[in-house]
């Protein structure tokens, strides 16, 4: 098979493949850097929990709109995700439960609630769409939404980069100098939920967080500065989208999981070949004299 048949014609011949490609690249550019910050804040599992929290909101949107409608479900997901983020933050500050414990309680509740709501009205097919996404069914309005969220995310990150990183690294210091760290933390949680909502049409509520965490893990293995990590994560996430779509097109795999598995392949390869990786240890280690 020629290069063009492998890599070009799926996108040249099919509009839905083009839209899926643009959506997954946009998704990767926004989610990658967000994932790096989540991981550095040691909130990887919190991201996972928030992706589940999006579900009941999306399900209520699904009920109200009477079917799969991205605006209604996205709005519902945004509200639900933010409420859970805020509530569990509040609970961890006012009780002995740590933030991860309160997130876990909330997301289990949310997942059960979400599945229950969808199953009230929808079919099993609808439930599968909500849980695992339908990137090949993305239409123009959905594409604009995903693109707008990625653009907004990158612009906001650029504007609040300094306080966000400072709050991430040393929240106690920000509190001591009156840096309003909590405001930037909340803004960051808002961006996380927003990107989960963007990923949710493409990859579903359960897997949209994969577009954040796997590229972020790869980035931590390769880059040593924060801007470097953000760049690596964005590129890996976008590449995973491209390669995942091509593979799923030719082999007839479901596209969402294939994209996430592609990111997982990057992760495994990085574990082997990154500067501190397994392969490097097979070579003799050289050291300098001073």
């Amino acid at each position: 098979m020629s290069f063009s048949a492998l890599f070009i014609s799926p996108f040249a011949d099919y509009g839905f493949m083009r839209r899926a490609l643009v959506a997954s690249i946009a998704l990767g550019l926004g989610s990658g850097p967000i994932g790096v910050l989540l991981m550095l804040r040691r909130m990887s599992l919190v991201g996972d929990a928030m992706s589940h929290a999006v579900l009941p909101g999306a399900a209520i949107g699904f009920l109200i709109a009477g079917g799969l409608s991205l605006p209604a479900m996205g709005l519902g997901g945004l509200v639900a995700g933010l409420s859970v983020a805020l509530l569990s933050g509040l609970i961890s500050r006012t009780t002995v439960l740590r933030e991860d414990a309160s997130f876990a309680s909330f997301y289990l509740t949310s997942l059960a609630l979400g599945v229950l709501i969808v199953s009230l009205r929808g079919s099993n097919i609808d439930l599968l769409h909500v849980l695992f996404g339908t990137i090949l069914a993305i239409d123009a309005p959905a594409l604009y939404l995903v693109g707008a969220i990625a653009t907004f995310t990158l612009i906001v990150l650029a504007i609040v980069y300094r306080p966000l990183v400072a709050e991430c690294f040393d929240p106690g210091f920000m509190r001591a100098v009156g840096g309003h760290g909590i405001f930037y933390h909340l803004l960051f949680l808002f961006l996380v939920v927003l990107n989960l909502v963007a990923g949710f049409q493409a990859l579903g509520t359960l897997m949209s967080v994969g577009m954040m965490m796997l590229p972020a893990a790869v980035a931590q293995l390769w880059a040593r500065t924060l801007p470097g990590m953000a760049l690596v994560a964005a590129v890996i996430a976008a590449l995973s989208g491209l390669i995942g779509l091509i593979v799923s097109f030719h082999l007839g795999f479901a596209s969402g999981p294939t994209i996430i598995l592609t990111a997982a392949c990057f992760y495994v390869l990085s574990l082997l070949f990154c500067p501190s990786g397994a392969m490097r240890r097979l070579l003799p280690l050289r050291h300098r004299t001073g």
Partner: protein
Amino acid sequence: MKPVSPPVLVLDDVTLTYEAHPAVHHLSGTFARGCLTAIVGPNGAGKSTLLKAIMGQLPLSHGTIDRCGLAIGDFGYLPQAAELDRHFPLSVADLVMLGAWREVGVFGRVTSACAEAARQALVAVGLEGFEFRSIGSLSSGQFQRVLFARLILQNASVIILDEPFTAIDARTTEDLLRIIAGWHGEGRTVIAVLHDFDQVRHHFPETLLLARDLVGWGPTASVLTEANLQRTRAMAEKWDESAPYCAA
């Protein structure tokens, strides 16, 4: 204790509790402007708790803390080292320049004067030329030096240190004690939680000896007496699950 200079921090009947048990119990007293005071006491005596309350990070159960017109942002605070992620991808210069937060803020430009101040601060803590190293490559002693450089850049009139020399080698401790002495010489107020009595006797003119209740507060020689230290040991051990509620 009769302060010769005006007060910078007045504690009036301060009680801080943990699950209704006192961590600091009815503590009153004054830190004078420009004092160099060590806070000493056994583990669980409420030393770090007191510092957190001074920094406004803990609610008081009782009493008041008067910061004498200063904002919390005028205080430089170094919490116990374990609370930071030492492998965060920041450069040494990034970390030190956080100290200039109040001048630079969220959107301000990092001026060349600020960068130069950061360089000078690194020279002062003995880390000349470390600007572009990542903080992950530093030893714990070097990391503590970098945190001191950040404090230098903060230019605070009151500096509060929570066990600054834990797990730090003798040479680094000596260098950092010299910086503390320098701050004292410039008229800044320095309050530090410490464990090494010899260090306190040599470098800190005043001492607050705490064992939940105040044991002694004043010139170090008159506070760190054998009788006081024995009282401290006896007081720190008692934790009565069913202690009656304090009437005071």
